[in-house]
């Protein structure tokens, strides 16, 4: 699991890598690599310095665990410490007398409005009656955006005509109370941490609506600046936790570590996609892997588990091992994959695969065409693909709005996939055939 970084460490450590314990020379060399890795991930340089010093002291004289080499040993230690550091603190929201108020704050463009809606949906799924208050009177059409999002997820949005964001927040919360809601989320305007007037305004909103939770919304792509931002928001409104956004990108997200280390405030949620249900509880171990540039196997496993009902999974596994793979199975597995999110995002989570994917383009539209072809087959054809002859192919192509060529390619791909599934049953990891993903190497 510790591929990229531990390989690099192993190369650096060279002969020392085979030693039985970590001596000072090995640790020093390893720490230089760790420092670089953390800096490249945008962890604040002061945080890096302190962290590396701490880990170094701990690593010195460590016996190397059986089954690990020196590089892996160091990475494991660093990974454990990172996880520990980022996981400290309560990741739960606080709830009190209804309605519990949650105040959202952050820089412009960090994703407050979208995150507010996602959080409302998340809370409703936990059985709470949630509402949204539009208190971003700064950005043109921010209120319209929140209303549109509220409509999509059937969550009430409270807006007022006032020009005063404090009043907008107060009135919104009051109306949510009248409506008997359990929890209400106040979306505020983005503001620069150096803008004293706007930071004071945020404090006034806080004093007026008395939130039990103040969440700082932070873009995962933020650089060294994350520390200044967090310190300023900490000083003005003393936030309770962080929501990390835009984690569906490829940012390593070192800002998460910086903010946690500097403010001590826990990271509570992670936003992992544009869709409104793509807000997750924060997982410190995964974030540690991400910051260190390692694949995120746990997330993948969990996603897969969530997408596949248990019975389905067992049946599918049995069939895979048996090497039976009909178009019905194909459709089922395809739809599971879709439920897990964009295919490229999923494959990226696999260690090693992420880098392979750099040159590969997975065409999601192409995958939809594949689905259309399968849907144009009769149940019998899906079960017994071997009966699909020329006339049937023509009919399927016409029915799915594709060409006979594409149908042929899919038929060939199923055969290939069946073969792969057999391998999978034997415990080796297959790659998706390019015909299925529309994948083609880029220049």
């Amino acid at each position, binding site marked *: 699991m510790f591929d990229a970084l531990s390989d690099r460490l192993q190369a650096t450590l060279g002969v020392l890598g085979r030693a039985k314990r970590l001596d000072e020379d090995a640790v020093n060399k390893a720490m230089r690599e760790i420092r*670089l890795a953390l800096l490249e991930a945008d962890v604040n340089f002061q945080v890096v310095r302190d962290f590396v010093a701490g880990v170094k002291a701990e690593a010195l004289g460590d016996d190397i665990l059986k089954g690990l080499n020196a590089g892996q040993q160091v990475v494991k230690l660093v990974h454990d410490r990172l996880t520990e550091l980022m996981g400290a603190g309560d990741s739960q929201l606080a709830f009190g007398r209804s309605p519990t108020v949650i105040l959202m704050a952050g820089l*412009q463009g960090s994703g407050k409005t979208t995150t507010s809606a996602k959080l409302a949906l998340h809370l409703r799924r936990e059985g709470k009656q949630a509402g949204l208050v539009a208190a971003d009177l700064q950005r043109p*059409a921010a209120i319209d*955006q929140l209303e549109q999002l509220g409509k999509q997820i059937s969550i009430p949005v409270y807006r007022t005509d006032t020009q005063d964001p404090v009043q907008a927040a107060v009135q919104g919360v009051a109306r949510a109370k009248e409506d008997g809601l359990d929890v209400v989320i106040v979306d505020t305007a983005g503001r620069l941490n150096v803008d004293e007037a706007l930071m004071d305004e945020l404090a006034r909103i806080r004093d007026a609506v008395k939130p039990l939770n103040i969440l700082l919304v932070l*873009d995962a*792509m*933020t650089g060294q*600046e994350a520390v200044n931002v967090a310190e300023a928001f900490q000083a003005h409104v003393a936030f309770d936790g962080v929501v990390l956004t835009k984690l569906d*990108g490829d940012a*390593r997200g070192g800002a998460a570590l910086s903010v946690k280390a500097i403010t001590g405030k826990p990271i509570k949620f992670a936003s992992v996609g544009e869709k409104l249900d793509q807000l997750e509880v924060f997982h410190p171990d995964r974030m540690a892997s991400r910051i260190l540039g390692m694949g995120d196997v746990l997330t993948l496993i969990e996603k897969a588990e969530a997408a596949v009902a248990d019975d389905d999974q067992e049946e599918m596994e049995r069939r895979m091992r048996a090497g039976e793979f009909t178009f019905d199975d194909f459709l089922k597995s395809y739809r599971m994959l879709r439920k897990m999110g964009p295919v490229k995002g999923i494959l990226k989570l696999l260690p090693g695969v992420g880098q392979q994917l750099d040159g590969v383009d997975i065409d999601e539209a192409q995958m939809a065409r594949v689905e259309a072809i399968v849907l144009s087959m009769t149940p019998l054809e899906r079960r017994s693909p071997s009966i699909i002859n020329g006339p049937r192919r023509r009919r399927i192509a016409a029915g799915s709005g594709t060409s006979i060529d594409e149908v042929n390619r899919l038929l060939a791909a199923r055969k290939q996939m069946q073969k792969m599934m057999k391998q999978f049953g034997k415990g080796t990891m297959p790659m998706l055939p390019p015909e299925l993903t529309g994948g083609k190497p880029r220049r």
Partner: protein
Amino acid sequence: MSRTWAELFGDEPTVADEQEKTGFFGRLRDSLAKSRRALTAELAAGTFDTGDEEAWERLEEALIHGDVGVQATAEIVRRLEARGEVADLGDALAEEIELLFGAAPTFDLTPKPTVILVVGVNGTGKTTTVGKLAQKFREHGRSVLVGAGDTFRAAAEEQLEIWAERAGADFIGAPAGGDPAAVAFDAVEAGKARGRDVVIVDTAGRLHTQSHLMDELAKVRRVIEGRIDGAPHETLLVVDATTGQNGLQQARLFGEAVGLTGVALTKLDGSAKGGIAVAIAYELGLPVKLVGVGEGLDDLRPFDPREFARALVSG
């Protein structure tokens, strides 16, 4: 001393431009210095001893702290070390950073119309930059048409239309959820038919890792290419100055999808140093052309490598 719009546009300088120069120097310096310790203040006070390992380390950390990134920092330090003597660290550092940026940028406005495509990830300030740029072209005697290619974000079109009206630019919009390539087509065609000097096409923010959205962007570019030879003449990536090393990835992948000609670095009025621009210039050779230092209309400025480098190191 700083760069003027006339210089960026290749126009003859006017008296107003001279005033603009002095005004800008102060503004960028102010905004960069505000609430931020100067890079040099973080280095050892007094003279820089090139034999002092710790002094070099502090220098590295200062650059890293400015989001300059590991690679570009190593390169800057290597070049400074190669100098042997460093009389004034601030001067030397500014010179080296300036060299990394290359020549001061220009827009070639000879094609009629000159087509400018504006791209970037979500929340960097694309629409605002398009609006302000339109205004600047108008102030410098160019007729402008803007195309609202952000058909995704709610109310993005309205936002740009207000800017266009303010600037006195023509406006081409599309219904929400419409095809951005169609907007680009309409904008370029209208710009040609009406004889406009400049056509600026805004696009929706997208994460560079979303391949279907990057394909959509590539299509917008192809449509523009198909209407006018050599267009788009400028493809600008808008980068938020608070962005860390991911900015490099953004520049790489947007570059692969649509072929960038430059960067607009926004939100420099915060406490972020914007050093990611140095990394992008060094690793990808992509010049910065515009900087945004505030919400006001005059807070979009032509990028001046020397001024930026000076402001970065001396506050």
